[in-house]
């Protein structure tokens, strides 16, 4: 087991370092093969680990810090949660690597790209497998770092670089909260081992647990793009599409959910913290869905849908259904990666045109992409019997069973969101693939890229078997997660469950119907309308509720003004000026004293003698 | 140390006697030199004043005293007047430490035939000989004459150079006697005069003292042919006389020291100590005159080379050898 875990981490690390250090010297194909092989090797290790998995275990690879009472070993923890995520990460990332090989064929700087991808995988796996919080934090920052560099991969364009910076700075707010939580917990518990911490929650009063939970929530907000720190994710689409698929849809953004699930035994005891998490998730889900309604950029639609879906996951965690949340996380990873990769195919076919109102007719040009994409959209919309349906439904069920006014209203909100989700999913499908005015150009690479979609589509569609509802049979994940806190199956009658699923299915189908009416039938009219200036509501949604402007007005403007004042008045006016004056004064006095060093012995002698007389006089004064 | 009247009287007596004897001796040494040189050069020399010219020194003194005292107008009057005294006084002072005979009993107490028996006697002698330089240097400088100045500079460098080899040649003597005190040195030669042990040191010392006296062949500071008498060109009358007398007193003093250091001083068989001492000094004085009558003058660079490149290293080697010998004995 130790071998598997070590190799799982070492493969991508070695691949990334090799690419980074020697990538420029190696031929392109060697780099590509190396990068893919590293990730697939990691996946194989994960699969083998899963195959031989028996019980949760901790593996210590070495020491990191050991000073005073701070002991941080490099130790990994394998339990159902981390194992399932590791397998998912290995698989999805491996597929995306293969996809990226073809997608990035025309781009230079392949070494940097693949090095960063591999290092990202390493960091993500570290995050997931870490047994101690500092190691988790290492991975946490590692993925953030790779994300920053990959969003700004085409850094020569200022917008891309800005998007990278925005992502980095915004997530940093969350990171700060995490560091505070870490330091505080070390002070409270004297350890940073996750397994130990999770068993120590009862030691502390509820208010402290709540505070720690909220700090973790803020960390998750940053990394998982939850309200109010979600503004970076839509802009992160500036990166290459495989990056968007891998980092900003499937893996990294779920880190926040993972963190909360991981620490659930600790923070789950605080109802307040849980409620806050649930509210955040619900609001984010609703926010993302509404914004996705009006987006014109294909990737931004997907980005907002990601925000929305992660909101669902948070909702699940908030409702105490870690299994449901993880279930949705896994299925979401598959279908969202599928959607992004499909979008990548579309964008490639459209010669990097991303406006969905300028697309259409691709159903005939790219049939394979269409069918796969359709599967992804169905999952996203939660059409019955798809993987997305089951996973989303398990969250809804958990919410319903939680009970209470708060969770009931959140359930209603989630249902509304599901309706909107179905609507915008098919709006997207209709606009992109419907109609007849299609483009005809298909690259060779595109064929290979489309092939990658197939396994993802299958997984997305049939992901539901991972955790079938209890009336069909005992869910695999439920059984697997049974040992975890918060992993217990939601109890309820089969009838009730069926009723809830019927409601969800009806909602999804209603959304589909609405989308068909508006964009299937009235497509041409919609295209005409799109050319007009957007209505106030559409603009509001298009711009993500104007959150960017709000932040601009509330935070950035005052900050810039303050910076301006600090810069011009304080820094230049006070500090610089005083330093300038000081330097000038010193220079003046220096040159003035410098006249002393005339090179004339006589003056030196007089100075020297005067100094000596002064010292002697001091001694005499002492003697008096 | 308490002094009573007899002590003081003895001291004053010693000083007066010594003073008188030295001046007389110096005066007659001049006469002797003139006579001996005359004989050597196959002529008669001064023989008119008194029997065999014995009153000649008196006549010379009278002549000098009555001569007009000339001071050049551009001269530094103070230093011009002081210089002759500066030349003569160290020579006279040297006698303060010279034991002229064995201690004798007088007025019920033992009396050294020596003005004072310093425990750093050798150093006292060296100090005085180094002071003697000033008379020459200042005399020449104060005259404000080119030739005098040249003579002074020559004298300075010559004296400094030979002082070194002279001092170094005395180190083995001190090492053998294990004292700076002159009476100790004389007593250390009770068995054997040091010339037996230290012939090389004696040779170096002899050459050096001739140079110190600025006698031929080392009389470059006053070389008549080149510098018109050098540093005392401008002097006349009694001032010149002082230079002159100083030189001869110096001869006697150095002769006395040479006999003390190497020939056992007043020690000798049969004859009374004072006589022995007198004989030895006379021998050295004769040697000086003899050399003057025999050897030609050296060139200036030869003089310097002899001092620095020959005598000084030789003296150093001699010290080394003596040290070894003393250590191994």
């Amino acid at each position: 087991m130790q071998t598997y875990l070590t190799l799982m981490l070492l493969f991508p690390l070695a691949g990334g370092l090799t690419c980074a250090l020697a990538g420029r010297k190696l031929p392109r194909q060697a780099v590509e093969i190396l990068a893919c092989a590293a990730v697939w090797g990691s996946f194989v290790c994960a699969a083998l680990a899963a195959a031989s998995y028996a019980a949760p275990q901790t593996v210590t690879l070495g020491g990191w810090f050991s000073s005073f009472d701070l002991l941080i070993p490099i130790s990994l923890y394998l339990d159902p949660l981390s194992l399932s995520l590791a397998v998912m990460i290995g698989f999805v990332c491996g597929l995306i690597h293969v996809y990226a090989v073809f997608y990035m064929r025309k781009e230079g700087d392949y070494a940097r790209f693949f090095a960063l991808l591999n290092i990202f995988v390493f960091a993500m796996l570290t995050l997931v497998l870490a047994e101690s919080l500092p190691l988790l934090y290492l991975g946490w920052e590692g993925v953030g770092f790779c994300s920053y560099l990959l969003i700004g991969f085409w850094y020569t364009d200022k917008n891309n670089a800005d998007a990278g910076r925005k992502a980095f700075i915004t997530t940093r707010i969350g990171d700060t909260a995490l560091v505070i939580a870490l330091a505080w917990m070390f002070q409270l518990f004297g350890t940073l081992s996750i397994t130990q911490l999770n068993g120590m929650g009862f030691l502390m009063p509820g208010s402290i647990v709540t505070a720690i939970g909220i700090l973790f929530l803020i960390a998750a907000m940053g990394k998982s793009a939850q309200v109010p720190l979600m503004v970076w994710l839509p802009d992160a689409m500036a990166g290459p599409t495989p990056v968007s698929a891998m980092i900003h849809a499937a893996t990294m953004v779920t880190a926040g959910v993972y963190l909360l699930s991981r620490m659930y035994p600790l923070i789950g005891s605080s109802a307040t913290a849980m409620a806050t998490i649930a509210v955040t998730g619900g609001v984010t889900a609703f926010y993302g869905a509404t914004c996705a309604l009006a987006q014109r950029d294909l990737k931004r639609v997907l980005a907002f849908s990601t925000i929305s879906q992660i909101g669902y996951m948070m909702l699940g965690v908030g409702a105490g259904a870690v299994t449901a949340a993880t279930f949705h996380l896994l299925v979401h990873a598959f279908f969202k990666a599928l959607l992004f990769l499909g979008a990548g195919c579309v964008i490639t076919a459209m010669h990097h045109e991303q406006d969905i109102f300028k697309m259409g007719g691709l159903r005939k040009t790219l049939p394979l992409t269409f069918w796969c994409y359709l599967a992804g959209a169905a999952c996203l919309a939660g059409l019955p019997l798809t993987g997305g349906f089951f996973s989303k439904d398990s969250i809804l069920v958990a919410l319903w069973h939680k009970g209470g006014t708060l969770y009931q209203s959140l359930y209603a909100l989630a249902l509304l969101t599901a309706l909107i989700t179905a609507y915008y999913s098919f709006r997207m499908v209709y606009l992109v693939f419907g109609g007849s005015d299609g483009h005809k150009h298909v690259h060779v690479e595109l064929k290979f890229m489309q092939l990658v979609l197939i396994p993802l589509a299958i997984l997305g569609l049939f992901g539901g078997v991972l955790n079938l509802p209890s009336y069909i049979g005992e869910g695999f994940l439920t059984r697997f997660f049974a040992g975890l806190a918060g992993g217990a199956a939601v109890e309820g009658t089969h009838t009730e469950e069926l009723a809830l699923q019927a409601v969800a299915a009806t909602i999804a189908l209603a959304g589909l119907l609405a989308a068909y009416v508006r964009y299937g039938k009235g497509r041409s009219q919609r295209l005409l309308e799109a050319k007009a200036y957007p209505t106030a509501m559409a603009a509001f949604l298009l711009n993500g509720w104007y959150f960017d402007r709000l932040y601009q007005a509330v935070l950035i403007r005052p900050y810039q003004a303050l910076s301006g004042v600090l810069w011009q008045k304080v820094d230049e006016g006070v500090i610089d000026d005083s330093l300038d004056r000081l330097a000038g004064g010193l220079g003046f006095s220096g040159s003035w004293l410098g006249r002393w060093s005339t090179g004339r012995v006589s003056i030196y002698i007089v100075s020297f003698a005067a100094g000596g007389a002064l010292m002697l006089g001091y001694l005499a004064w002492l003697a008096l | 140390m308490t002094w009573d009247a007899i002590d003081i009287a003895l001291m004053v007596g010693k000083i007066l006697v010594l003073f008188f004897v030295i001046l007389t001796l110096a005066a007659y040494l001049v006469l002797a030199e003139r006579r001996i040189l005359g004989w050597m050069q196959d002529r008669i020399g001064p023989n008119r004043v008194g029997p065999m010219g014995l009153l000649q020194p008196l006549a010379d003194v009278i002549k000098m005293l009555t001569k007009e005292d000339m001071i050049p107008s551009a001269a530094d009057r103070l230093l011009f007047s002081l210089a002759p005294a500066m030349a003569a006084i160290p020579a006279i002072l040297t006698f303060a430490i010279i034991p002229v005979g064995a201690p004798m009993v007088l007025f019920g107490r033992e009396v050294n035939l020596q003005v004072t028996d310093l425990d750093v006697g050798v150093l006292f002698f060296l100090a005085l000989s180094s002071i003697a330089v000033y008379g020459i240097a200042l005399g020449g400088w104060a005259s404000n004459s080119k030739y005098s100045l040249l003579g002074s500079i020559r004298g300075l460098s010559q004296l400094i150079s030979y002082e070194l080899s002279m001092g170094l040649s005395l180190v083995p003597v001190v090492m053998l006697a294990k004292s700076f005190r002159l009476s100790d040195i004389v007593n250390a030669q009770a068995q054997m005069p040091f010339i037996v042990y230290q012939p090389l040191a004696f040779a170096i010392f002899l050459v050096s003292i001739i140079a110190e006296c600025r006698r031929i062949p080392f009389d470059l500071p006053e070389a008549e042919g080149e510098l018109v008498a050098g540093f005392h060109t401008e002097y006349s009358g009694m001032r010149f006389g002082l230079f002159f007398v100083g030189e001869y007193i110096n001869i006697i003093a150095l002769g006395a020291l040479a006999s003390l250091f190497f020939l056992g001083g007043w020690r000798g068989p049969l004859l009374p100590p004072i006589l022995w001492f007198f004989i030895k000094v006379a021998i050295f004085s004769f040697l000086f005159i003899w050399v003057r009558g025999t050897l030609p003058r050296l060139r200036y660079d030869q003089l310097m080379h002899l001092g620095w490149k020959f005598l000084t290293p030789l003296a150093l080697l001699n010290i080394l050898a003596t040290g070894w010998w003393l250590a191994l004995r």
Partner: protein
Amino acid sequence: METTLFYILSAVTVFGTLCAITARQAVRAIVYLVTSFFALALIFYILGAPLVAAFEVIIYAGAIMVLFLFVIMMLELGSPEKLPKPRLADWWPAVILFLAVVGSVTVIAASRQPAIAPGFTAISVREFSQALFTRYGIAVEAISMQLLFALVGALYLGRRR
């Protein structure tokens, strides 16, 4: 008697030095200074340091000052130049420094009153030499090296090109 002699010699020393530093000609300064050093040597003798006294005369009066005299004469012979003389204004800092130093030391010295022990005996040559060549052997070596360096340096500076 020696006490009286000490004060007389002190007066001679101070007077000679004073004349030396105010002399108009360097040669005269040397002469005054030699006088002063002579008196100083006698003070050393009185203070029980006959060896230092002898060396004071041999080395200071007999060698160092002669060297000065030699150089002065050589320079005068080479190119008689008018050396700059200190103006009256130049004496002010000197006088102030003089007063400061003497005042300070007087104050410091007067604040303690240790007398030289009346019965003290002069340090004999033997004692002196034993201390010099045993306890301070290293210092002697160092000094000899320094003299050697000075010799080499002087030769280098003096060589003709």
